[in-house]
């Protein structure tokens, strides 16, 4: 009970603050505490850490809350991101609806991390999804509404897949592959799975910088956490086909996302694809875990650390891109450091996370392990190339387009945390004792992919090239919404129906007319007499025969 007693109020605090916005008098106070509203959860998580999860059978259909190492890592990163984003939001946005959306998104994105059961998780996750729509459409322009519709539409499709996965998982536990496929596809909606990826550039470009920062950090982290927690063990054991499929899928996303990103002309769209690429790496890391003797749990802390790091870096990149009031060269330097961390340059937090993930691959069957050991570092090359392109785009971005309201100290803190925090977490979590990351061999492991990237980037002057191929066309919108806007479906067919109805009505009225006429005729006495005699005769006949 103590665990829940700590966690529940802390989780619900942002939601309560959001409700408080309905009273105009309270708004001032809420704005003041908004940036720090995630701190109680961090404190509660630290306090609850280590104690077993608690069941709350009375809540919805029974909810189980608790904190495990992956959750704590992601909560810590999330708290940091939300604090910085919150400080930015309260300076930049006053509209209650935006504040409300942000608070609800916060409640959802952090609350999802402390749940151990599908229902509780689904609650927080969908709260986050729906509320984050407000972050996308903050611009209130036609473009942002279109983007919001696409984003939410695809997100909801994902939500339904997740729900289907949860339902099948809880009712028919034997259908593991189906559950797994549905869950990966569903969470993939947030992670930029192929087909879902079309929403990423559209949404990230339409959203304000802080919106992009949150979408690509805390939201995707919640999704990856969902995969970690709820993916059913795939028959267990090394070489299981599901695990291998996941690894392949993840690597496809990693390289495909990077390639799509490189051809972007908008830095935010590029960051969107970068997110998809990074999440591909995370998914393949989960696949590695699933094919691992120890199961997903074995790589969970590593994946969580990877995701937490990515979130911190991505948030800092987004805000640094649009809301860092610094001289251009300082700003570039800041972004460069973050980019290096993302590309897992040695000694950065990113490198640590990636090495930890990679170390798990040793336990895969030999031919798989070999492939993974080659391909994972190559993802760093892809990331590095992408970031070169990113920095190139930033250089051409006029400084005047900076959004006001950013504060240097906050962002620098966030960046520093991104680079440093993984080390702390790694140490605290005990890490993998065999993983000694500071040996020259390991350093080399981090360096060669970057060198490869440089080799490719310099001759092609990737970052500097002004013109890039046009981005893939974004989908015009949700198909069903289109359907809704279409004029009356098949008016011709309806017309046919109408004539059918009129025809039968005509027939009826004709019959009635005849009846009236006949009635009149029957009034004439001769006819009446005939009828009378006829009836008498018929009656008699019936009686006699």
């Amino acid at each position, binding site marked *: 009970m103590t665990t829940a007693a700590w966690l529940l109020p802390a989780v619900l605090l942002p939601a309560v603050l959001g409700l408080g916005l309905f009273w105009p008098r309270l708004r001032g106070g809420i704005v003041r505490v908004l940036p720090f509203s995630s701190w109680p959860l961090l404190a509660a998580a630290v306090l609850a850490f280590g104690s077993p999860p608690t069941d*709350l059978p009375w809540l919805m259909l029974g909810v189980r809350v608790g904190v495990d190492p992956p959750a704590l890592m992601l909560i810590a990163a999330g708290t940091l991101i939300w604090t910085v984003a919150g400080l930015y939001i309260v300076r930049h946005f006053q509209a209650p609806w935006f504040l409300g959306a942000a608070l609800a998104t916060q409640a959802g994105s952090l609350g999802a991390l402390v749940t151990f059961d599908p229902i509780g998780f689904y609650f927080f996750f969908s709260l986050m999804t729906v509320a984050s729509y407000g972050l996308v459409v903050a611009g209130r322009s036609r473009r942002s509404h279109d983007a919001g519709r696409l984003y939410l*539409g695809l997100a909801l499709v994902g939500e*339904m897949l997740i729900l289907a996965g949860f339902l*099948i998982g809880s009712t028919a536990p034997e259908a593991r592959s189906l559950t797994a496929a549905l869950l990966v596809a569903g969470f993939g909606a947030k992670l930029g799975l192929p087909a879902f990826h079309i929403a990423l550039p559209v949404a990230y470009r339409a959203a304000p910088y802080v919106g992009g920062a949150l979408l690509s950090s805390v939201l995707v982290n919640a999704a990856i956490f969902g995969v970690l927690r709820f993916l059913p063990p795939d028959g267990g054991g090394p070489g299981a086909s599901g695990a291998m499929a996941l690894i392949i899928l993840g690597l496809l996303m990693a390289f495909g996302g990077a390639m799509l990103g490189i051809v972007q002309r908008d830095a935010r769209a590029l960051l969107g694809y970068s997110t998809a690429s990074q999440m591909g790496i995370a998914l393949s890391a989960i696949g590695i875990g699933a094919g691992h003797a120890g199961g997903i749990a074995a790589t969970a802390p590593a994946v969580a650390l990877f995701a937490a790091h990515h979130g911190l870096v991505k948030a800092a990149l987004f805000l640094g891109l649009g809301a860092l009031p610094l001289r251009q060269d300082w700003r570039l330097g800041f972004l460069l450091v973050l980019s290096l961390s993302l590309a897992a340059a040695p000694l950065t937090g990113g490198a640590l996370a990636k090495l930890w993930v990679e170390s798990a691959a040793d336990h895969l069957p030999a031919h798989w392990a070999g492939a993974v050991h080659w391909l994972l570092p190559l993802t760093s090359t892809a990331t590095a190339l992408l970031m070169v392109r990113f920095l190139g785009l930033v250089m051409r971005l006029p400084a005047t387009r900076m959004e006001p309201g950013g504060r240097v100290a906050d962002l620098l803190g966030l960046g520093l945390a991104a680079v440093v925090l993984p080390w702390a977490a790694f140490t605290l979590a005990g890490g993998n004792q065999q993983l000694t990351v500071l040996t020259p061999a390991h350093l080399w492991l981090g360096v060669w992919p970057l060198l490869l990237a440089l080799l490719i980037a310099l001759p092609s002057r990737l970052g500097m090239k002004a013109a890039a191929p046009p981005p893939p066309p974004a989908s015009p919108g949700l198909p069903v919404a289109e359907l809704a806007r279409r004029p009356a479906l098949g008016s011709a067919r309806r017309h046919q129906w109408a004539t059918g109805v009129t025809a039968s009505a005509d027939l009826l009225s004709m019959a009635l007319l005849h009846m009236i006429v006949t009635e009149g005729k029957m009034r004439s006495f001769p006819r009446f007499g005939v009828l009378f005699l006829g009836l008498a005769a018929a009656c008699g006949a019936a009686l006699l025969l």
Partner: protein
Amino acid sequence: MSNDALPPLLILLSSLLPGLIIFFLPEKSVRLRTALNLCGALFKVAVVIVVLQGVYAGLEYSASVPFLPGNDLVLRIDSLALLFVTLSAGLWLVMTVYAVSYLEDSPNRSRFFGFYSLCVSATVGIAMAGDLLTLFVFYELLTIATYPLVVHNGTPEARRAGTVYLAFTIGGGVLLLAGTVWVQTLAVSTNFLEVAGVLEGLGQEHETALRLIFALMVGGFGVKAAVVPLHQWLPRAMVAPAPVSALLHAVAVVKAGAFGIIRVVYDVYGVELSHALGLSDALAVLATATILYGSFQALRQDDLKLRLAYSTVSQVSYILLGIALYSPLASIGGLSHLVHQGLMKITLFLCAGNLGQTLGIHKVSEMNGAGARMPWTMAAFSVAALGMIGLPPFAGFISKWYLGSGAVQSGAGWALVVLLISSLLNAAYFLPILSRVWFRKQTGPWPEEKSFGRFETKAGLLFPPVTTAIATVAVGLFAGTPVSPLSWIRDVVAVEYRL
């Protein structure tokens, strides 16, 4: 008359008597009328609470009134009945408060409230009906009592809507009557409690008859439950005032239809028999078609109430789908949707009524930025809409979870797909509204703005939807507690499936 007979009669009379008295009150005696209405509603709720405790403690209540030779009118409260009674009693109270405010200064209020009360009486009668004849009697009574409400505005349009309503409901009544009489001649007794499935135990030679009877009864109840293609009266009936729409959609009419089908499947046939004859499969197909059709139609409506109406068409068939799938979990889902849909839909309609009364808004396209002007109303609306989509922690999620689990449990994967597609469609027609309301700028002056002092609208209009919205959250959030509708429904289903 024993004490056990009193509560069912009291529940029935607590709205019937005020209704009859109200008919004869002069138009001007507003206070007396309101007092009668409220006292009746409160008294009913009080009796229901007492009965709830009684049934919880294992008491049984039944009353019978001599009616036809060999067929008394039997009222009895089993747990399924109590579920529906509680829902209607609670919502009636809310609706009364709302309707009194809504109809302030409009003509013909005595007539309106008279029939309003009759309508609720008929509904609780349907709920408590202990045999098929009684069920039919109250079902038809509901038709009669609702008609004047549908045509209340007195416009030619209202009259046409009323005619369509009658054509469908009376036609349905005829089918139901035929089915009822047929059952009567086949079965030993049509008392729901004396025999678990009235028709169970009939031999092979009656198979065709059983199928035909099922078709007749589903046809009869399906009209009110707005099963495609018998739904066509429902959108037209939207010309009626908002409290009537809420009554039609949430408390009385469509619920009565759905409840009737529940009785048919559970108590007339029994789950086993209807499954064995393949009847529930047919019902499931019908429900599926309705769910999808209603959602697609809702997408195309710009008129807010029409959109809500088609949403009802779709949502009520969730109940039927839950009943039709051969699975206890699905049944829990279907039955709980009976309650949950009621709470959510009433909220939506009351909010729509508020928009019309306060800002003159009747179309979705006029709603831009309404959230800033009427935050509480729109918050209630949002809660209900999100619940309709099936998002946690709102009531709709609970139903959907069980329905989905049931679909998986019964091996009907297609039903799960339908559910999820329908949820997406729900989202596609509800979320744009929420987006307009909260995230878009107001585009021009409101069509017809009125201002009401302290609150965003009249207090009597504001509190009812907010109350039901809170209830929507509460029944979802605390579904796991023993006092929730869900726990009650679990017990009901355990009985029906003989678990």
